[in-house]
């Protein structure tokens, strides 16, 4: 019992789109800002030059809406997209991404085990933590307790929109040890506890959607401190901004390259994934944008001042790994609770 209206509308869209779909350039979607600038220099351009092909870029802001539409209409407008782990898992289970033939990827043995996924190649290790502007903050915040201390540090705090990350940080600020966070959060009491902690700073929270926003807010002194991605802070430091990223209990996660189902340049996209998994471009990327590599050979290729800023080794010894399985199961319920909390 297929909905005739829906299939009609999809058919019309597909016919209109099919005319433009034929023989286009390799299309790569990334997270924008200096993250994507670094990817262009380290991956897109060298790969395109070596293969003698052209590429175009698109911007992606998370979620599976675009990829799901591509799968439903049969018109994949992207050939590659860099996604978060939880979206990769859901998309792979539902057939929204192509499966990766790992036997055809020579660098496979050099990758960390978490990078090898059925539909994705983990490429970038991202640290998420507390950051501030050392010129305007006054006394330096040290940890998540300080982030929730509005007495000592009055003013707005930047946080990522939605429950992900924020519930975790709230629990740590409330005294939960990082390796227990998801155990506690899996219980109703744990959820209550996280929201109760967030209540204490609720009127001071400002939410960001894109990773570039909190950087601008810190520079303009719109927020006193913020949750941010580590490399965005490092990139701002290189531009002379007096920003500091606090490596106390950071959260780290892996972004992976995936190929939307039925992408017209699928074979080329798979070759790109093989290239992006090798050590040399990953080392170049980490130098431009200090996120961590997934290729284990890279660490030896990086100068110490770069290693000091990436989510690896000493920096993540008291950190915790973002739980994709937890959020795949709990995102709907916790988002609903979150929206309800935000609007109250």
């Amino acid at each position, binding site marked *: 019992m297929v909905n005739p209206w829906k299939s009609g509308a999809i058919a019309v869209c597909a016919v209109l789109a099919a005319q433009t779909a034929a023989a286009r350039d390799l299309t790569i979607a990334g997270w924008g800002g200096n993250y994507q600038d670094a990817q262009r220099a380290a991956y897109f351009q060298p790969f395109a030059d070596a293969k003698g092909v052209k590429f175009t870029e698109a911007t992606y802001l998370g979620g599976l809406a675009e990829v799901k539409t591509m799968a439903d209409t049969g018109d994949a407008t992207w050939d590659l997209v860099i996604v978060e782990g939880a979206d990769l898992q859901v998309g792979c289970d539902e057939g929204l991404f192509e499966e990766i033939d790992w036997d055809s990827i020579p660098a496979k043995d050099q990758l960390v085990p978490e990078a090898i996924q059925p539909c994705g190649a983990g490429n970038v290790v991202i640290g998420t933590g507390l950051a501030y502007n050392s010129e305007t903050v006054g006394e330096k915040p040290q940890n998540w307790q300080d982030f929730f201390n509005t007495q000592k540090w009055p003013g707005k705090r930047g946080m990522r929109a939605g429950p992900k990350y924020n519930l975790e940080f709230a629990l740590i600020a409330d005294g939960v040890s990082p390796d227990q966070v998801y155990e506690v959060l899996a219980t109703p009491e744990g959820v209550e506890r996280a929201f109760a902690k967030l209540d204490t700073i609720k009127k001071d*929270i400002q939410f960001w959607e894109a990773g570039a926003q909190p950087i601008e807010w810190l520079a303009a002194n719109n927020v006193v401190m913020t949750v941010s991605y580590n490399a965005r802070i490092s990139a701002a430091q290189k531009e002379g901004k007096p920003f500091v990223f606090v490596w106390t209990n950071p959260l780290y996660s892996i972004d992976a390259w995936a190929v939307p189902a039925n992408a017209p340049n699928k074979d080329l996209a798979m070759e790109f994934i093989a290239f992006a998994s090798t050590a040399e471009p990953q080392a170049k990327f980490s130098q431009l944008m200090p996120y961590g590599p997934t290729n284990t050979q890279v660490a030896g290729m990086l100068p110490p001042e770069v290693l000091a800023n990436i989510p690896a080794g000493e920096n993540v010894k008291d950190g915790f790994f973002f739980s994709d399985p937890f959020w795949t199961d709990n*995102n709907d*319920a916790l*988002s609903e609770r979150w929206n309800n909390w935000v609007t109250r």
Partner: protein
Amino acid sequence: MSGTRHNLAAKATLLILPLVMYAALYLLPLISIGSLSVDNGELSDRFSRLSAHFGTDAPVDDAAAVALLADLQGMDSRDRAEAGRMFNQEKQGFRSLLIDTGKAAGDIPPTLDGLTAFDPRWGEPSWWEVLERNVEPVTWRHVQKATGIKPDGQGGFGIAPGDDIYLRILVRTFVIAGQVTLLTLLLGYPLAYAVANGTPRVRAVVLMAVLLSFWTSILVRTTAWVVLLQTNGLLNGLLIRLGIIAEPLQLIFNRFGTVVAMTHVLLPFAILPMMNVMRTIPAAQTDASRSLGAGPVETFLRVYFPQTLRGAAVGGGTVFILALGFYVTPALTGGPGDQMLSYYIADFVKKGLNWGMASVLSLMLLASVILMLLIGLLVRRLAGWRRQGV
């Protein structure tokens, strides 16, 4: 003779063809998206046996277990994952339960005890209730979640505390749109008057300013307000330099910033209709009123102002309806408490992948606009009758 008439009819058909096409192109996607709010074909097709089982009001028994396992075996793993995600919107943990059960469906003894032995959750009624509610071809789960109105278990309907979240956001959306409409009319009226009745130079300057902002991208104008209003922004800098305040004021990421930026973005939509109406009012009327002894205030209130109300109604109505659907401006200048319904619609489409909810929320917004228009029509009707009665 009849040939000419035929020809005329053909011509008339040709003339309305664009209208028909427009209506079709406008209505088809609307209906298609709207149907997502109650359409549950994706689940009822996949769980046809279970749907048939519960259709006869049968209890959760071994037959239900047989139907569930047979349905799960009839799907490929992608369909199971998608179905699991949809059930997960109702009860957390359902996705992995369904995927795991589906993988092992062939090996599980087809009884309720067999299922419970595989995963004890199948022994709890709450998981079966989710299945029972959501395998019908039509579902009310999105409507219930959006309006908060649910069966209260005693045969009636009620809204549990906290479930009215989207109604509260709808009210907030209307309040913000109302505030913006009021402000655009108050600010726009004198400007429109200046364009319609000022000297040519005033007219040119004001009109240019209005049109320039009208032609500028909404994103640019919103970002400009962020630059003006932020903590170290131009306005706070000016106020501190003048010694009026010592500490910067919080002018952005709150309701104030949202309303200011939205008012500026929408101002031209209020000014242009009012200006056009004012231009059609002959200056001779004002002169006549003055020569008959009315003062300037009385002339304005009794002769000029009532004639401009039509423009204010068109301008205000346009601003109000446009403001209801605003997304970018509140997202950039508002705080968490200033996001409007469109923000949540986008959130459900992009992050939640829950298009049913997005569809219901859009329909809620559309229905409330239609309701407003009907009320407006009714008021005009009543006002018209009263005038005729006098």
